């Protein structure tokens, strides 16, 4: 995935460590939300549990989109990046009110890694191939 701009992503040595953290955290979060929806006592089959299944799935879709669409227009990358950021935050908040602590933790980890990946520029030497 990821940075909001696609420029330099390859040069930075994709996939970078932060990308992996985001990807793993979101995949785990998705699994967690699916398990919650079917099995979590108290919230199983609720609209809220379904909502976070969908929201984590959307994050996954966004990550895959970033990964495979090399020629993504900048404006689209910005819009998708902002929406993904909001999705991280919204899912974490929803997880908080569902009292799904693991989901909140995973979203926070993914969010921090996402922000790190998006806004911390790679050092110049990392661009040298």
């Amino acid at each position, binding site marked *: 995935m990821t940075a909001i701009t696609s420029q330099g992503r390859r040069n930075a040595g994709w996939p970078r460590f932060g990308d992996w953290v985001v990807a793993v955290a979101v995949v785990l979060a998705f699994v967690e939300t699916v398990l919650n929806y079917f099995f979590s*006592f*108290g*919230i199983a089959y*609720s*609209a*809220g*549990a379904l*909502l976070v299944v969908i929201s984590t799935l959307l994050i996954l879709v966004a990550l895959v989109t970033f990964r495979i669409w090399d020629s993504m227009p900048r404006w689209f990358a910005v819009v998708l990046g902002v929406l993904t950021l909001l999705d991280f935050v919204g899912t974490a908040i*929803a997880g908080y*009110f*569902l*009292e799904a602590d693991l989901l909140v933790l995973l979203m926070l980890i993914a969010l921090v890694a996402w922000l790190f990946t998006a806004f911390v520029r790679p050092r110049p030497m990392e661009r040298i191939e």
Partner: protein
Amino acid sequence: MIVARTAFLLALVVAGPAVAQDASPTQDWYTFNGDLKADKYSNADQITPQNVGQLRTAWEVHTGDVSDGKNPNGPKASDWGATPLFVNNTLYVSTPFDRIFAIEPDTGKVRWTFDTKIKLVDPTQGELKNRGLSYWQAASPVAGQACQKIVYLGTMDGKVFAVDADSGQPCTSFGQNGILDINQWNTVNNKWPLSILQSPTVYKNQLFIGWSGQDWTQAVQPPGSLFAVDAQTGKLNWKLDTIPPDLDPKTGTSNVWSSMTVDAENNLLFIPISSPSPDYYGGDRQAPMPLSTSVTALNPDTGKVVWSYQIVHHDIWDYDTNAAPVLFDVKQADGTTVPALIQSSKMGFLFVLNRLTGKPIFPIEEKPVPQDVVDGDKASPTQPWPTMPEATTQDKFPGISKLADVLSGGYCSRTYAGLKDEGRFTPPSLQGSIAFPATVGGVEWGGGALDPTTNTYVVNSSDVVQIYKLLTRADYDKVNAGENIGQKNANGYFAMLGAPYGFHIETFLNPMGMPCWNPPYGTLSSYDLNTGKLLWKEPFGEVQKWGFYMPNSWGAVTIGAPVITKSGLIFIGASMDSRVRAIDVKSGNVLWKAQVDAPAVAMPAVYTYKGKEYVVFAVGGNSILEPKVADQLVAYALP
């Protein structure tokens, strides 16, 4: 010491087997409220604030007796508020389908079941309700002889079943082949049959049987009555009528539909008496009815009234006295004690009275209240207003919730502006009146729990705002045209046939279903009853919507009650979030919680068996508040 022992033996001789039960050193839970004093207190101290976090499910039973009421051809929704009994080394519990389960207390294995086989068609309540069992045993049970120990179950069709506690077989010497039908005594204004929701109270060799009905349907209804019958034969010993007989052509009810309390030491039976009919208009019942909406002390041998304290005068809010008073002894500063009781109420007021005389221990003022009633009625100029302990609910409308108001485009504030709100005891009106607290409480039928070693009293209470609206008979009939209005209780319409008005009640929600008033919606409070002071008050429970839990500070509406253990723990279900909790009695902090299948609207029972302490919850739900029902009986213990 010798004096105390002599007094104890004398009490045994005078009072018989029920006193023997009350003085039992075992950690039984032998009445709905734990014991005859209704303090909901257990001497068990194995589970402590330090180790309660280790509680695990010890066993679980699903009775199969559950209905959500959605199948038009099936039974109505179940409403299971039955606190199990632990006595005779057995756990007994009844179900909303009117069956009895006898269960091994340490394994959950079912020893026997008894099926009353009554039709699952509720004649009065709109739901299949059950609030548990009663237990009696002979002073000296004869081994091998049946029905020396009896479990009683009251049913929705007004019958009391007596079943041998060891075998589960009917006690045929009781009533007719083990069944006593109290509707044989329903002879005055018998517009509807009597239903038994709450198990009878047992003391000495008598059962005290109260009942429920449909007090929203008619102006003239069966007058409230309490039946005292022989525990072994079901023979009627005496009957108390709570309405003066000359008022029978005008009114009715003031029945006893919840549990009762016994002071074995002073031979007194305390009964909470409900409001007269019709519930929300009193124009035809202006004559004094001193027992209506009262707590009343009786001589259990004769049924004679010893004293009565009316907690609402001329009740037009359906503020039934709805819970058994809790007995305790106030320890005064000079070292003396005063025998007392505390009566909780739907209004959130807590009345502390001398239980021998009915006189207030903490001052109760007669305060002027709003007088603007509809034509034909006349409000009481004053109402009793305890100065201490502090009420569980505030005196005024809690204010419009900005969140609910904004999200509904101002619906809440617009609606409120059109309603009458003069604070507590605002009478029902044609324009619609704010009722806060409303008929759902305040404190509901579970009442509070008391630690007799410290006189700490803990009680859960709801903060619910409802809108009371009277409709002229013509308007009512227009709205309910084509309906069976005599039985109608749908969509909040109460017929009150025979009165010049019908009635509509609704909870003050915005169109999204959010409460229009500020939280909290429910609290748990603790009081020092020696001083009457509030020790702590915390929002209790959580509102859950679409799976999301709302902030703890909101609390939740509760039905059910707490229990207290000697080790300083409160155990309580009650909340609509389907959780059961253990709370530190000193601080009010939640120390442990577990998810269950539905709201546990029965208070738990605490018992010790083979050296191990168990806390058991009947988890059944109450579909009036939350469309979630279950049939789960779950016991927790330390590993």
